[in-house]
């Protein structure tokens, strides 16, 4: 003790109280709560008895518990949300999926400008400061990539199958508020949205979405939007395919025809029988069980099956869960409030007797559409179905030993 006191005195000036309090911490190698726990071990600082030693003092920025390491899964072009590690519908901002076409641009908010021109009385440019002065709106909705579909292996996580969907609470200005300011020509039918990234990504959007619920969002989950999500401002088109929600928005041109950009012709289109379907904007209703799912393990007895359901066309009205490979369907409880064009959390209590089975969920939205099986989608669109706008029912196999495996279906 005396020795410790002395060491405190000598180093007093150099180190903070925070560092000092951490001095007696020990390093422990612990498995962490994550879908990838079996592959990941991390060093965590612990104390033998946390009730016998004060912890660190309040800080400037909070951190996640070192025992919790939900992480995105990046590829060359995207980074997927760890939906199986989340407990409700809001995706923490740092875990929101990413998809970009030439990396994340570094944009100085003081240099940022949004130009709106074309079929308007008065073409205008708005600084970020200008955008923030307008009446603002906050809404919660999901964004899902139109190519959010993977299959093939049993050992796939929810993240790997459909981790390209996330949900945030977005704040910004309604596009209609800005369009009112410019006095848009009533003959205008489309607008072009252009990003300020190195791909200068563009999409053509029908004008009715601008008058309906389109927003320019500058905040996400209460703070400034993250760079990966379009800082300082992005287009937000609730319920519409992710690619149309142009990030780092720098320009809008109002027009009387679509532009047929690369994104809406050679990408984000898909074969339907002998044709190629384009301008599929709304994301079809979809659901998935996130617990239990691979690589989680379950025990015999009561299991609360949990998951996410959503529809780009409005509200989720019903989620059904089957615990016998689709023979019987039972209505799940929905967590309220159920918002339109939003991830909706569902729960269904099930007593597992230890027998091998398959569990799955299907959603019905307020237009009366029920999530189809993969077979139904193939019957409707043909074998050469592609990967865009795929929303089939996803099944998990529960094995006798409690392991849960994805059931990949051929197409």
């Amino acid at each position, binding site marked *: 003790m005396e020795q410790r006191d002395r060491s405190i005195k000598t180093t007093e000036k150099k180190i903070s109280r925070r560092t000092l309090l951490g001095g007696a911490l020990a390093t422990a190698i612990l498995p962490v709560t994550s879908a990838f726990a079996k592959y990941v071990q991390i060093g965590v600082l612990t104390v033998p008895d946390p009730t016998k030693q004060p912890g660190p003092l309040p800080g400037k920025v909070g951190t996640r518990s070192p025992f919790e390491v939900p992480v995105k899964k990046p590829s060359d072009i995207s980074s997927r949300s760890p939906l199986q590690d989340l407990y409700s519908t809001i995706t923490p901002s740092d875990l929101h999926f990413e998809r970009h076409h030439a990396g994340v641009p570094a944009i100085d908010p003081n240099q940022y400008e949004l130009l709106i021109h074309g079929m308007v009385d008065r073409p205008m440019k708005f600084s970020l400061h200008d955008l923030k002065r307008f009446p603002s709106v906050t809404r919660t909705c999901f964004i899902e990539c139109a190519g959010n579909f993977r299959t093939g292996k049993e050992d796939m996580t929810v993240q790997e199958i459909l981790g390209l969907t996330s949900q945030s609470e977005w704040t910004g200005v309604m596009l209609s508020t800005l369009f009112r300011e410019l006095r848009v020509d009533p003959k205008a039918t489309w607008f072009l949205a252009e990003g300020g990234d190195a791909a200068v990504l563009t999409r053509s959007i029908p004008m009715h979405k601008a008058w309906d619920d389109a927003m320019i969002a500058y905040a996400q989950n209460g703070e400034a939007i993250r760079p990966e999500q379009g800082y300082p401002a992005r287009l937000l088109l609730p319920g519409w395919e992710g690619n149309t929600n142009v990030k780092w928005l720098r320009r809008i041109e109002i027009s009387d025809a679509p532009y047929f950009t690369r994104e809406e012709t050679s990408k984000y289109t898909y074969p339907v029988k002998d044709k190629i379907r384009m301008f599929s904007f709304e994301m079809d209703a979809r659901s998935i069980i996130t617990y239990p799912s691979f690589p989680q393990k379950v025990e015999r007895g009561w299991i609360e099956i949990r998951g996410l359901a959503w529809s780009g066309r*409005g509200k989720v009205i019903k989620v059904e869960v089957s615990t016998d490979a689709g023979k019987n369907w039972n209505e799940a409880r929905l967590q309220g409030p159920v918002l339109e064009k939003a991830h909706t959390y569902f729960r269904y209590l099930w007593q597992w007797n230890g027998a091998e089975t398959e569990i799955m969920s299907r959603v019905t939205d307020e237009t009366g559409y029920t999530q189809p099986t993969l077979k139904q989608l193939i019957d*409707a669109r043909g074998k050469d179905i592609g990967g865009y706008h795929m929303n089939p029912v996803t099944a998990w196999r529960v094995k006798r030993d409690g392991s849960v495996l994805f059931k990949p279906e051929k197409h």
Partner: protein
Amino acid sequence: MLKKLKLRRSHALIFGLIIIIGVVIWLWPPVKTEPQWPKTFGYGKTATQQEIAKLDIDVRPDGKGLPAGSGNVPNGAIIYANKCAACHAADGKEIKGVKLPGPPLVIGDGKTKTIGNYWPYATTLFDYVRRAMPYNAPGSLTNDEVYSLCAWLLNQNKITTASQVMNAHTLPQVKMPAQKLFIVDNRKGGPEVK
């Protein structure tokens, strides 16, 4: 007895009040969801024609937005070899078993989606190449270079001849083979799986 009566009276009073308030709310004109906004907020600045011209790079299928300049197949071949082949292969075709950094651009043996079999409009080529290519130096090509690349790519895909010059007049006239395949999604919600 009196106490009971009083209580009843106060109950009746409260009940009556609730009904009156209810009727008033019911008959009251609907509340406007938007406040009385000014005609204009006055935020932002008018954009000048020069400011618009600097950013307005989009091109439509009818040719609106195409700049002056022109290009031809031989020049396109040289530019392609220097600036595109590293990612899209020497002849723009898919190399079996090799994952290219960029997708193949010319029809090969497989079912790969290329300019020749999948792109509905030739103008999109100009628009996309000028804004996003080459990947490591986007926006660095001159208009003539982009026209030349369009000429070479369309010729390699057997859509145009080797002598075809590309400019703001000729490019929109190129009829792309896949154009007839494209249909607009006409789903409107409802139970049908389509």
